[in-house]
């Protein structure tokens, strides 16, 4: 319920700010609305329980990129000039293209979603897992036979609903379910796991992105370097 309201609110903010960015004549305003957009996007990430990305979005995008864009706008654009045309001659064709692309995306995804696919029919979930720590924590808190059932469920990925349903079906009452849920590992998107993955499975990309960032830094500096005048 809350999720739905959050989602729709954020949807409206996102779409509204995007349209404003695209259509606004004043570039400065567009940049500021970009900040709003990015904040809303971060909120959307958090709504999707990817908190890390939300935080990083705020830090990197809002704090970094938008500031940088604002600087450049102030350096280069003629903000006060209101007589400039916003759009070029590709206006109409762009609308057509945009509509076609959107319709194709939507139809494709609707078509695909009509097929029965694993995991996608329910939408973003929280996933819980029962591992050894959970069992250790739950040792004293629930009865032995329930523990046995829980042991049989360990190291399997479950969504919350599914877990609840499974436990209910195994004869757990709500209080026990809450206890289990408290100690079940829900950190699927947590920074721990991301850190672990970055340095094990995705270490190459990690290193490469660092190289790219270095190169970008150097490149940007060189690009904006002023030509040295012969006489100093």
């Amino acid at each position, binding site marked *: 319920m809350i999720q739905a309201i959050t989602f729709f609110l954020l949807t409206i903010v996102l779409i509204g700010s995007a349209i404003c960015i695209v259509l606004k004549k004043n570039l400065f305003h567009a940049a500021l609305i970009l900040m709003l957009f990015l904040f809303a996007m971060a909120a959307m990430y958090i709504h999707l329980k990817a908190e890390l990305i939300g935080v990083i979005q705020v830090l990197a995008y809002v704090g970094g990129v938008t500031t940088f864009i604002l600087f450049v706008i102030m350096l280069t654009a003629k903000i006060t000039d209101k007589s400039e045309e916003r759009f*070029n001659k*590709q206006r109409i*064709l*762009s609308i057509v*293209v945009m509509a*076609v*692309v959107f319709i*194709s995306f939507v139809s494709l995804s609707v078509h695909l979603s009509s097929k029965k696919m694993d995991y996608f029919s329910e939408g973003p979930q929280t996933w819980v897992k029962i591992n050894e720590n959970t069992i250790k924590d739950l040792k004293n808190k629930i009865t032995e036979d329930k523990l046995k059932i829980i042991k049989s469920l360990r190291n399997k990925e479950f969504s919350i609903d599914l877990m609840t349903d499974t436990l209910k079906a195994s004869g757990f009452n709500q209080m026990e379910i809450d206890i289990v849920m408290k100690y079940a590992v829900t950190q699927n998107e947590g920074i721990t796991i991301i850190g672990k993955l970055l340095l094990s499975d995705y270490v190459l990309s990690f290193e490469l992105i660092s190289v790219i960032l270095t190169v970008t830094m150097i490149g940007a500096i060189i690009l904006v370097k002023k030509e040295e005048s012969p006489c100093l």
Partner: protein
Amino acid sequence: MGEYHWIYHYVWMVPLFPLLAFILTLFPQVRNIKWTYKGAYVAIGAMGLSTIYSLFLTGRVISDHEFKPYNGYLRWLTAGNSSIEIGVMVDQLTAVMLLMVSFVGCLIFIYSRDYMRHDKRFSRFFNYMSLFAASMLGLIVANNFLLLFICWELVGLCSYLLIGFWFEKTSAADAAKKAFITTKTGDLGLTIALMMILWASATYGNNMTFNFVTPDEKGFFNILPSVPTWVLTMIALFLFLGAMGKSAQFPLHVWLPDAMEGPTSVSALIHAATMVAAGVYLVGRCYPIFAAAVIPLVVVAFIGAITAVFAATIAVTANDIKRVLAYSTVSQLGYMMLGLGVGGYTAGLFHLITHAVFKALLFLSSGSVIHGMSGEQNIWKMGGLHKHMKYTCWTFAIGTLALIGFPLTSGFFSKDEILASAFTFGEHSTHTIPFYLGYIPLLLGLTGVFLTAFYMTRCFTLTFLGNKVRSNVQPQESTLWMILPLIILAGCALLLGLVGIPKFNFFHSFIHFTRDSVGVETALYKFSSEQEGVNWIIMLISVILGFAGIISGYAIYGYKIQERFTEIKNSIPTWLRYYGNMGFKGLHFIVKNKYFFDEIYRYFVICVNLMIAKFCFIIDQFIIDKFVDLWACIMIWISRIKRWIDDKIIDAIAVNGWSYISIVSGRYLTYLQTGYVQQYIMIICLGIIFLTILGVIAK
């Protein structure tokens, strides 16, 4: 082989000696350097050796009681089972011919050493003469047709070379060509005969062979009984065609008078004694073929008789001393053929031998006369030479008497035997040849006797008798080298007759070909006209005719006769004199121009040939060449069309077209690069849409 004396085994050396002389005279060391006459000595030496060898060979042949012909051969060409062999053969005919040819040749070579001494091509003369002698001797000893044919052609070649020896004279070069081509026309017949022999021996015998006769009964003569008569007739007639060419019989006689353009030694050796005798020798050698088929012999006899009289008539009007002797040779050759044809095998061959001797004698002495008269050959410009050239005069006289058939000379016996055979032929043939036509050879022969006496007396009278020379030349006698052969030949001319005296006809019994010679029973035995006795009547008639000829000849052409003749002329009535004069002049005109034979040949043979050649040339030039040109034009046009196609179509489409497309498309596609980034992004998006649509459609 063992029973043969060694002299038979080496008989191939007889042609070899002149051949070595031929090769030796090719080398420059033997050439005429500063008149050293080395070539002459080499040639004379070679011929001398051949003469000595032949002399011993003949002696051995005579003395061998149980003589069987020697036949030695070696395999030359082999093809599968059959092979062609060449080899030598010795029988009585071979022996006497060898002796005659080498002896006369040797004497003529001795004579030529002085006759040709001022010639600048002295050694070459002896070169050619040696080659000729080698091939003639080879022809005689050949034991098969192939070797005979090879030597036949070689002899013809040497005749050409020697007649045209002084080729700077156009007339000599033309005469050489004429001789060669005319004899070649006869050789065509010989070639056909050879082919037929090969075929006949393959068809009717067991294997193909050219051999005359072989000990193992495989030669051509051995298989004669099994060959049908028409084949033999054809072979014999074609053989006689070859003999006609070489021996200057009636239609092909035209080359012999012109052959006098060559040096006199050449005329003596080749055109009197030996080469022209080759034809007679061929008929004699192949006599079994002729005898088995009787018709060719009759043809031979008639053509011989016609030739004898025909040539004698022309000789009456000849003014060149050598022409007279040339026509005389033709006439005597006719006699030889006549003799062979009527069945007088021995007679014809005996006449061949004696004629060789006295005709060589006559030619050599006429050469001496020409030499002494510094090149003058017209008898009307000579006269009274008996005072200046005694030896020549006496030898010429002896030769003349022998030629005429004066009693007790060699010519008398041989000619008489021919006439006797002719008479017997006439007698025996009354039941086969109708209307007494079988006597025609005899009658023509007798006519020839009269004519021979007439023209030889005329020639002798005009040349030697008289008081003074009719031209301004001072004649001189010839040197010893030239006189000596004359004397020797004169002696032989007188004495050779003794060999063939009737009643004691040694020659006859020597050469008489029967089964001994070839081992074959022939039809001739039924046909033979060999005389065992003497036919006194014919002998008397011929002697009377001879004397008549001598007397009339001397009467008409002799000294101081002209005045008496004018008296006789005036006593004839005018009309008779007028018509007689006209007729006589007309006849004289025809005969003097050789019955226009040369002109006939020129217009009917040579011109036709040239017209055909020109016609073919025109066809080739204008039709066939035009086809060739047409093809060439077509090819050129095709290549032009292809070039056009290649240039305009293929190059335009495949080569230039692509480049054009590239350039033009490039020119227009450049406009896509507007430089507007947003347009590029637009194009990307349009591309995405396009691909999506494609994907949807494909689904």
